[in-house]
C-alpha cells in the first residue's frame, strides 16, 4: 500500500453516509528506533468534509497570516477532523480500479471518534 492509495479517497461511516475525503495522513515517530529515526506509524487520517485536498494546512496550524488568505482557507476547510487509524474498518483495494463509489471509499467503524486536527 502506498500513501496515494489513501489520499483523496472518500470517507464513509458504517451506514454509508459520506463524511468527507482524506486530505492528509498523520504519522507519529514513536515506533522502534530504526537506525536514525523512530519508525513512522500511521496514526490518523485527516478528513475534510468540504474539500478533496488541503492547501498548506492552515486549518491544522495556528498561523493567522497572511490576511485574508489564512482566514479564508481556514473557513474553507472548516469541519476538518482527525480519525485515528484503528477506527478505520475498511480500506479500498488499490488494485481494484475505479469501482462503485461505495466500494472505493474508506469506511469507519460505528463508534469512531473525531478529533481536532491541529498540529
Amino acid at each position, binding site marked *: 500500500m502506498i500513501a496515494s492509495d489513501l489520499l483523496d479517497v472518500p470517507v464513509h461511516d458504517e451506514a454509508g453516509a459520506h463524511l468527507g475525503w482524506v486530505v492528509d495522513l498523520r504519522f507519529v515517530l514513536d515506533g522502534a528506533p530504526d537506525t536514525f529515526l523512530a519508525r513512522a506509524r500511521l496514526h490518523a487520517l485527516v478528513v475534510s468534509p468540504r474539500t478533496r485536498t488541503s492547501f498548506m494546512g492552515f486549518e491544522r496550524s495556528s498561523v493567522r497570516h497572511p490576511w485574508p488568505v489564512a482566514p479564508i482557507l481556514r473557513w474553507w476547510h472548516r469541519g476538518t477532523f482527525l480519525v485515528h487509524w484503528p477506527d478505520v474498518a475498511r480500506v479500498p483495494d*488499490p488494485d481494484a480500479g475505479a469501482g462503485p463509489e461505495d466500494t472505493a471509499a474508506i469506511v469507519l467503524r460505528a463508534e469512531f471518534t473525531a478529533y*481536532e486536527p491541529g498540529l
Partner: protein
Amino acid sequence: MRRTRTGPRDVSREPEPRQPGRVLDARLHLLDRQVLDVDGMPVCTLDDLELEAVDGRSAVDERIDGSVPVVITDLLTGPVLGTRVFGGRPPASRWHRLPWAHVVDIGTAVRLSVRSGDLDATWLERWTRDHIIGRIPGGNHDPESSG
C-alpha cells in the same frame, strides 16, 4: 447501492491527545520535499510513501485496515508526472525505493545517510553523465579556471 449524502456534515470533535513522538503530516511535511544525500547533494523529490503492516502483512496478500498498525517502510520516487495529470499510479516495479532506515532528518528537505551515487534513484543522472555529457569534448573534467 446509492450512497446517502445530504451535504457536508460537521461531526463533533474531541481534543486530540498529545502524542509521544514527533508528528508529521504526509502532505505538509514529506511529500514533494527534496531528498538530499549525506553530502547535501540533491537525490530526487519524494513522490510517495510505501506503507506496510508491522506484522509483515502486505497489501498483496491480505487487506490492510485499522486493525493492524502500519508504518512507513520506504520513500518512493518515480515517474509520477503522467499519473498526476491523468490519474492512476505507476506500477510497483517503476518506483525507486529509499528505505526509511536511511532517513536522518526531516526538515525543509529530507536528509539521507547514504551517497546519491549508491542509489538506484539516480541511475538516469549517472547514465546521462557517462553516455552523453562525458562524450562532449571537455565534458569529462571540471572546467579550468579562465584566470
